[in-house]
């Protein structure tokens, strides 16, 4: 035995690790030396976290705070005294008083070689890449002084670019196999579209049976784009077509901007996250050449009116008329990623989905009907562009049923990143722009529309309106400064019960739908707020099993973690911390607005007076503002 051991090469001899008595140390603190500095951390902390907490820089690539540990890229290696090889700091839990060195000649050489090896299979030019100057691989190459391709460099493309999807473009030549997108798709979103296919040198990230992305069950949320460290995943960019429309004098180009991009676009211009650039952005958009700049929050307010009325109608049919066919709880339909998720994974629950369109599509339909009529413009000359924090909105505006104005309601969906790029291309420095307001006839919207951007926002906006319409009293009487905090925050699933303590008279706008509110007296409104499709799956399974959530009346679902402000079209990077700051920006802007409830928005009221004359959920609004869904199912043909 002894003799055999001597014959084995050093690299293959068993590596004996002293027993660390793992059970014993849990909950205790361990003192370690990092770069000869004594640091005390809780037992089980990874070396990476210990370093980051103590301002010691360790580079990472496959590591992402939203995702599980993978340890695939090896760039975060450090030297641990007594260990034969370098250890990946992201996946090494501290369980003993070890000595760690983060910058020894061996570590530095290894890191340089690792980056060099990644580059040896990375095809593409930085100049022509969408991620130029915002690429993690590029910055690592700079950081570790890779000045020549020691291990060669691919000179020919190996994969075809997959442009089949309206939302996500995959260029696997640029992929470095960090598997962030795989972990995003399978763990974070539980959609399961991407995986590593084949083995060894042949390994690449692909879909089921290598089918184009448009043919598989991708929900277009774009979270993978937001996690990708290189330019392998990007959004389908329509900016060239938009420039063309802007430069065409016969076209009337109209922009509608969602609430989330304004809270994040500053990040594209080197600003700290958490600062809104609403007024500056409006000026910049006009200078680029958009003829009108509207606020999507206006139709968010309209969504609340339509969806809220739909909810009241459903509750009335179910509770008073005892109609068993009414599907409750009602699900929100604002998030196109969530809508497609439901169509694929829970098609039996499509009746629960509110038939109201998302704010983007409502606006498109209104611009090409109401606005065209008011301004005397031929709707075929109007080009409607939507600035969204979202990749799935590109898919949504291309849905064939979204043409209730007789034209394609929204022509292009543009992400925050692409908008930032267009502003830069026009030579405009966004933070230095003077502020300006949105254009009429839709004007400035209410704070309720604005908070659509954060998870819980739709629910809060709906509650503000429903409570006032039902009780006839101000929401401020129930919740301090109308901030409905139980539905705020970043927990994946939030559940709240709102008691209806008293009822008032039925407001004018709903008179033709219900006679009185008596049936809601002493009722308790049960609501839930869910973000991220992994959480949505949990709630849907609970509803299927007849659990707590099946008794809810209204559930808000958002496909992306954090809601729209963490959307797949937002500036990269997006982390929990950045999402919180963006939410803060949105909520503080909401508090600063004079009108904070959808039904108090005078432009919405006047729209119902002038155009949608038969009220919310009436005939005209059904034609323009409501839609239907497709049972897609999970099976990939």
């Amino acid at each position, binding site marked *: 035995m002894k003799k055999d051991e001597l014959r084995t090469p050093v690299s293959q001899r068993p590596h004996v690790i002293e027993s660390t008595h793992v059970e014993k140390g849990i909950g205790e603190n361990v003192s370690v030396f990092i770069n000869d500095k004594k640091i005390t951390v809780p037992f089980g902390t990874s070396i990476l976290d210990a370093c980051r907490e103590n301002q010691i820089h360790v580079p990472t690539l496959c590591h992402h705070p939203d995702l599980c540990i993978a340890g695939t890229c090896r760039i975060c290696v450090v030297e641990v005294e007594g260990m034969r090889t370098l250890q990946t700091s992201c996946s090494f839990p501290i369980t003993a008083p070890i000595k760690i060195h983060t910058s020894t000649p061996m570590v530095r050489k290894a890191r340089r070689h690792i980056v060099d090896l990644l580059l040896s299979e990375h095809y593409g030019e930085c100049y022509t890449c969408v991620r130029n100057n915002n690429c993690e691989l590029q910055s690592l190459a700079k950081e570790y002084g890779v000045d020549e391709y020691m291990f060669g460099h691919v000179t020919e493309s190996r994969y075809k670019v997959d442009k089949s999807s309206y939302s996500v473009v995959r260029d696997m030549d640029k992929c470095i196999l960090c598997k962030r997108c795989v972990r995003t798709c399978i763990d974070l979103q539980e959609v*399961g579209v991407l995986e590593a296919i084949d083995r060894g040198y042949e390994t690449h990230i692909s879909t*089921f049976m290598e089918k184009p992305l448009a043919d598989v069950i991708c929900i277009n949320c774009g979270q993978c784009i937001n996690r990708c460290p290189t330019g392998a995943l990007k959004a389908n960019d329509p900016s060239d077509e938009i420039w063309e429309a802007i430069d065409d004098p016969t076209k009337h180009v109209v922009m509608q901007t969602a609430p989330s991009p304004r809270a994040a676009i500053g990040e594209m211009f080197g600003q700290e996250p958490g600062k809104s650039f609403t007024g500056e952005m409006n000026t910049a958009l006009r200078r680029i050449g958009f003829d009108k700049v509207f606020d999507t929050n206006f139709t968010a307010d309209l969504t609340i009116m339509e969806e809220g009325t739909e909810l009241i109608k459903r509750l009335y049919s179910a509770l008073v008329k005892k109609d068993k066919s009414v599907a409750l709880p009602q699900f929100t339909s604002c998030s196109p990623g969530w809508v497609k998720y439901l169509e694929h994974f829970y098609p039996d629950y499509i009746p629960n989905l509110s038939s109201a369109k998302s704010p983007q599509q409502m606006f498109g339909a209104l611009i090409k009907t109401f606005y065209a009529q008011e301004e005397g413009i031929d709707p075929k000359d109007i080009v409607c562009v939507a600035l969204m924090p979202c990749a799935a909105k590109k898919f949504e505006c291309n849905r064939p049923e979204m043409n209730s104005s007789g034209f394609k309601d929204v022509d292009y969906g543009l992400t925050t990143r692409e908008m930032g790029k267009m502003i830069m291309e026009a030579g405009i420095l966004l933070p230095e722009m003077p502020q300006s307001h949105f254009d009429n006839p839709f004007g400035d919207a209410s704070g309720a529309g604005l908070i659509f951007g954060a998870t819980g926002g739709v629910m809060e906006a709906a509650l503000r309106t429903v409570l006032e319409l039902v009780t006839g009293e101000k929401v401020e009487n129930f919740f301090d400064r109308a901030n409905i905090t139980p539905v705020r925050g970043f927990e994946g699933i939030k559940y709240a019960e709102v008691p209806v303590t008293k009822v008032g008279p039925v407001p004018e706008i709903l008179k033709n739908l219900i006679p009185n509110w008596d049936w809601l007296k002493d009722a308790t409104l049960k609501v839930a707020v869910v973000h991220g499709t992994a959480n949505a799956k949990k709630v849907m399974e609970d509803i299927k099993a007849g659990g707590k959530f099946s008794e809810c009346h209204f559930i808000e679902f958002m496909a992306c973690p954090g809601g729209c402000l963490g959307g797949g079209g937002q500036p990269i990077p997006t982390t929990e911390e950045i999402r919180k700051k963006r939410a803060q920006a949105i909520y503080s802007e909401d508090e600063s607005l004079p009108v904070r409830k959808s039904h108090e928005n005078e432009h919405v009221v006047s729209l119902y007076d002038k155009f949608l004359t038969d009220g919310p959920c009436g005939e005209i609004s059904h034609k323009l503002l409501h839609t239907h869904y497709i049972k897609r199912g*999970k099976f*990939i043909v």
Partner: protein
Amino acid sequence: MLLEEKNSLSEEIEKYVNEYGNNRAALMPILQAVQRNHNYVSDFAQQEVARMLDIHPVEVYSVISFYSFLHSKPRGRNIVRLCRTIACDMVGKDAVEKAVTRELGIGFGETTKDGKITLEFTNCLGMCDQGPAMIVNERVFVKLDPEKAINILNEIK
């Protein structure tokens, strides 16, 4: 695929799931059983396995693409794999390779027109002292020469 075939395939997979379990760990034996019976795991079978184990179809495909002995595209009823590793190569693999391709009229990686035999290369079978080695379905043949190899092929034909 006909509806009837689909139903019988579903039933078959259900049988395997009952036998091996309905968790991720059962994925390999289930795929091997399907592969043994059908010579490949069709995209429908992959999705059925994924549905019953409550995992994503792409994960099943990922596993199939990783292993050389699992296939997602139709293969011949018999799979002949010739060892291409150095020990077999040095004792006459080339001669066997030429004889086999000439006999079947197909190259390596291809299937005969009648769907009976698929030819493939494989890496080391662990028969380095008895090469050249060839594995037909799950049976190993060693110390091959062209004549012997052709006899083996004729037997399975």
